[in-house]
């Protein structure tokens, strides 16, 4: 019998689910092995039991909590799909202000249906078995993690930093261009795509497990950058995580 998988979303841009759809021919091959039983954006209908649930987005409203708990109850494995689900992502950027202030600023009104709470990662509310970081996720990493699970193996994320992938690809260092780059402390797995694109790493995949902060501070000082500049960059995707 095929493994039953489902896709779910909360507050987010649905870019991670779209990345899965963008796997195209590879997705067709995957469909030989799994059955998509729930995927609101592509599919009408729902399922009672799910083997692997991929959940995108952050939890912002009381109704979200109940829906997430309900998804958790009918799923054997639950995976946080993308940075919003994994650590709050860009949704958390507004968490320096109260939801009331945000409502006033954007809607100029305070109506009950606009109520939200500070955005939370899924793991604040339910057990998350595995995570696929990134904004958006990397399609090939999604496939690698799904493949591991189908083979009953333990999925693993790279334990090294984006800098390693960047150096292996021999891209010029962003710091040499005067940019503030999060590559030294951000988890690899993206093939340093932003640096290849001529920009710098903004840390969308979150921190590596044990970031070595002292060499990083030295790099910053050598390039005349301040801790404030780095924190400003760090905040973009990692508001909910404590900086190193």
């Amino acid at each position: 019998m095929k493994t039953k998988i489902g896709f779910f979303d909360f507050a987010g841009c649905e870019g991670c689910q779209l990345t899965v759809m963008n796997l195209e021919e590879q997705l067709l091959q995957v469909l030989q092995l799994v059955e998509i039983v729930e995927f609101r954006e592509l599919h009408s209908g729902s399922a009672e039991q799910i083997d692997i649930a991929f959940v995108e987005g952050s939890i912002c409203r009381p109704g979200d909590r109940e829906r997430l708990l309900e998804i958790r109850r009918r799923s054997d494995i639950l995976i946080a799909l993308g940075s919003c689900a994994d650590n709050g992502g860009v949704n958390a950027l507004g968490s320096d202000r109260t939801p009331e202030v945000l409502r006033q600023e954007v809607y100029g009104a305070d109506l009950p249906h606009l109520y939200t709470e500070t955005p939370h990662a899924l793991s604040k509310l339910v057990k998350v078995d595995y995570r696929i970081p990134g904004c958006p996720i990397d399609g090939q990493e999604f496939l690698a993690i799904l493949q591991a699970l189908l083979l009953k193996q333990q999925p693993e994320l790279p334990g090294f930093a984006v800098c390693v992938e960047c150096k292996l690809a021999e891209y010029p260092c962003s710091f040499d261009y005067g940019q503030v780059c999060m590559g030294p402390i951000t988890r690899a797995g993206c093939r340093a795509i932003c640096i290849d694109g001529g920009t710098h790493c903004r840390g969308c995949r979150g921190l590596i497990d044990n970031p070595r902060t002292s060499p990083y501070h030295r790099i910053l000082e050598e390039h005349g950058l301040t801790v404030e500049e780095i924190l400003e960059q760090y905040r973009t995707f990692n508001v909910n995580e404590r900086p190193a």
Partner: protein
Amino acid sequence: MKIELDYLTRIEGHAHLVIDREAGKITSCQLQIVETPRFFEAMLQGRHYSDVATIVARVCGVCSISHTLASLMTTEAALGIEVPVQAQLLRCLLSYGEIVQSHLLQLYFMALPDYFNTPSLFHLLDEKQELVARALRLKRTANRICEVVGGRPIHPVTTCIGGFSARPEAAELKKLRQELVAGLPDLEATVELFASFEYPQFCRQRETLSVAPDDRYPLHNQQIQSSCGTNYPATIYREEIEEYISPQSTAKLARNQHGSYMVGPQARLRHGQDKLSAMAKRVCSALDLNPNGLNPFENLKARLVEVVHFTEEALHTIDELLLCGMTQIRGKDTPSAGGCSTAAVEAPRGLLFHSYQFDAKGFLKAADCVIPTAQNLAAVEADLQQLLPELLKLPESQIKQRLEMLIRAYDPCLSCSTHLLKIDLN
């Protein structure tokens, strides 16, 4: 009696439709947008101008390129930053890729299952293998445009203030050109398929709004055109368009002096029909589509005409880029001391405005985004109001299906406008 459609599926985002009827009459009809508010306009405050586009792209995965470009163009206009012609061409190519990708996703994955009476395209894998394979091939090619120019299909990484931070290799563009040409027979088959469907008949007078066509079909022009004959610069959008809050919706709605209006493929086609490519004009006739037509169900046909038009434009743009070279892809990033401006672009779903104000150090003080779907919501509601009485003699399951098809025809993108569709028919 109440008709409910809970968690409308095959649309981008979350919405419910609740309809109450008594003694055969509709007493209320509400499209409820229940997407979680995400407060981007407030989150952008205090951010440096060089970070704004990267953050605001995250409003929406499907139209991240449009948000990125609208954001960059707004910032550049506010801070007096020039964009070289070659970079503008690359931006057009990137927009074509996004529109074609988004339209194909809507046509094959979201709308087509209605016409085959199946829950999803993937249910056709056994009986219609070639059709599914074709859908995926076409989408792949469109995504390749975004990949080659933007670095990846979603949330581009090569776009920056003043143009691009990386250029595609000429060899990559040549390969992309071959792929686009190789995909033309697939497009022909798609036109044949969508010409064979029977579209529901429905007609309501409506105003349409898009960026005005310049020497090209509406895309990045900074002049706005209405079917009522008005024409104004994007910078005065606040005088012409009013956003308002409804108790049913977490998306803001929009209206102008005439009330509701429509944006998107049909609006662009109405205003830009003379600028269609030769191939797209033929597709228009093959689909039996009146470019001035008022049947929102035919948005699907307009979308397909645009897929063909923008594919042809992509081919021409690649030729132009290969001819002129890509030596000037980034203007000088020398911002003025603060400023404010507005820019409009045509996103796949229609007219999109971004408007920013920056302080003297280049930090954002205020932002406003007016999203295509938010502008269409009032028109969708007006359509529902008129369509419903015509449907009431049908069995409930058919009423629900027809209403869902109408809403899907607009291709609402609710992540953008704040996301899911649930229909309650009472």
